């Protein structure tokens, strides 16, 4: 379970992750995109569990989720897909989804399946820390899956330290108070305060990162960035994923 944290730390100030919605644009796209990403310059991958009511997401991710659900995507199917490709993947990948999907699946079953599918970290934006500790931690620990928590420039230092303590991969720093894909500018000052806190976990910036410029700015402040909406928008437009995905990644990473 150390791999991801270590990998990020080894690669300080130069981690790129992308987020995509499982089952978009086709149900089968999950494995295809994972494969391509695995061979690209990306550092780690977030696979989104499509949800009917993604509260923290902007329109691009919302729409991709709606399409994925129309395609028949489900958590069950996602675990099957991951099972099929897990042995071919060398890059770390984690799951991001909303709590209700997890509850419907069953908490213990969810963590077990994660573990069986090579998932060591999950991001559940509407799962508060307390609730995780109370209801999830036992299963998460048992199946060796650990959560990544979001913090924002407005999160208190005390809370950040608490989160740092229980986090085992990285801290997901939301660039500003915004839903995903929003064009708000990165709050440099506030972010510096957080990255200057001597946390044990690396800090990755997400929400609203859309191009190389944003990426470089994020890397100058923290350990890397996650691109979601911009990546999905590209996928939605692309007629040739095999070519466009690596191109997108190289363009951002400048490699």
């Amino acid at each position, binding site marked *: 379970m150390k791999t991801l944290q270590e990998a990020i730390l080894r690669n300080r100030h130069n981690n790129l992750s992308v987020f995509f919605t499982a089952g978009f644009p086709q149900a089968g796209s999950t494995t295809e995109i994972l494969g391509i990403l695995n061979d690209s310059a990306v550092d780690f991958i977030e696979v989104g569990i499509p949800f009917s009511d993604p*509260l*923290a997401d902007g329109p691009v991710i*919302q729409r991709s989720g709606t399409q994925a659900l129309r395609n028949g995507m489900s958590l069950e199917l996602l675990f099957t897909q991951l099972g099929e490709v897990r042995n071919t993947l060398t890059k770390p990948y984690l799951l991001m989804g909303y709590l*209700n999907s997890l509850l419907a699946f069953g908490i213990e079953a969810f963590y077990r399946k994660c573990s069986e599918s090579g998932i060591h970290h999950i991001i559940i934006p509407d799962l*508060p820390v307390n609730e995780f500790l109370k209801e999830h931690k036992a299963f998460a620990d048992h199946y060796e899956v650990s959560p990544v928590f*979001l913090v924002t420039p407005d*999160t208190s230092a005390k809370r950040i330290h608490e989160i740092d303590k229980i986090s085992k991969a990285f801290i997901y720093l939301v660039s500003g108070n915004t*839903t995903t894909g929003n064009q708000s500018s990165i709050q440099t000052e506030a972010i510096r305060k957080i990255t200057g806190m001597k946390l044990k976990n690396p800090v990755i910036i997400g929400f609203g990162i859309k191009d190389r410029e944003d990426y470089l700015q994020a890397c100058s402040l923290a350990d890397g960035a996650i691109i979601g909406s911009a990546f999905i928008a590209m996928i939605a437009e692309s007629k040739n994923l095999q070519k466009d995905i690596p191109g997108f990644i190289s363009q951002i990473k400048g490699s």
Partner: protein
Amino acid sequence: MKSYTLISNGYYGKFGGAYIPELLFNNVDELQKSYKKIIASAEFQKKFKGLLKDYVGRPTPLYYSEALSEKYKARIFMKREDLNHTGAHKINNALGQALLAKMMGKQKIVAETGAGQHGVATATACTLLGLSCVVFMGETDIARQAPNVARMKMLGATVIPSLSGTKTLKDATNDAIRYWINHAADTHYIIGSVVGPHPYPDMVTRFQSIISKEIKIQLRKQTGESEPDYVIACVGGGSNAAGAFYHFLNSKKTKLVGAEAAGKGVHTHETAATLTIGSVGIIHGAKTYLMQNGDGQITEPYSISAGLDYPGIGPLHAFLHESKQATYLAITDLEALAAARELIHLDGIIPALESAHAFAVLPKMKFRPTDIVVINLSGRGDKDMEAYLKFIL
């Protein structure tokens, strides 16, 4: 054992909580920490009570219906929330929250609305208190509740159509929460029912509890008893019901009955009867019953009534339902329309379609002639004339 403040640590039994993205943590945390204190402050109380009395028109009457009493062989009263300024109980909460927001130093308000009643109430409260106001409303609801859209706009609110899902209340709520995330610093979210993350369910219940407080006093004056045998209210998110139940929650005598919207029938896919066909999950930041498929996707509700067309229910009601402290019946569109027709023709009162669901409970009950039954008439039907014209005239 019933107890007034069923809530503890943000939960009603296992229901409730605050399942929110970190982006809203500070806002919700600030609210959790300050709402009780501010609401209890003399300044708030004085201003709020004054406005409820002189602006909203409270107390609303408790009206004894001779005609319904005769027909259903019981002593039937209705609580006239339809007479409130803006036409429904929603203003009790909107005004309370707007005042709270102002005292918390917020300048902007965001709200969701289904039937438009909460949107109008919120736009009204904002105008009165000089706050700016954005209201999300599903595109479907915008079409079926046109008069209220016009009212909101005239009151200076920005009405933004929600285009996802069924384009109704759930989707408007999603969008309002997203908007709040994007404007957390200066904006307060005025949620329209006893749903959402803690402290909303409790806070909204408190603002609406004036309904049962008045019922108690009025009933004693009019009958000598302060506790009715039944309180009946419709349940969308459940705010009018929460308000009507509140002061009877630990009564041994009073039976509480909620009416949820069965739409075209609980066994069709066109229904909004959350407690009847739903299961436990998370919706809009709270753990409660909701309508979902096996994969945890929230399903699209349907009701003829925009205000009940919601796939969740307040955690208080989930708790009252599970603990059998209240009974919830599912009322179809047609039953609600028949009840509306009856109320119009017997008492000359045109109820909101939402409220009509509560009246549709009457023919399903067996009362004793001495039973005191209070139905919460949560709003007036002006906004529903089009539906009524199609079905009733």
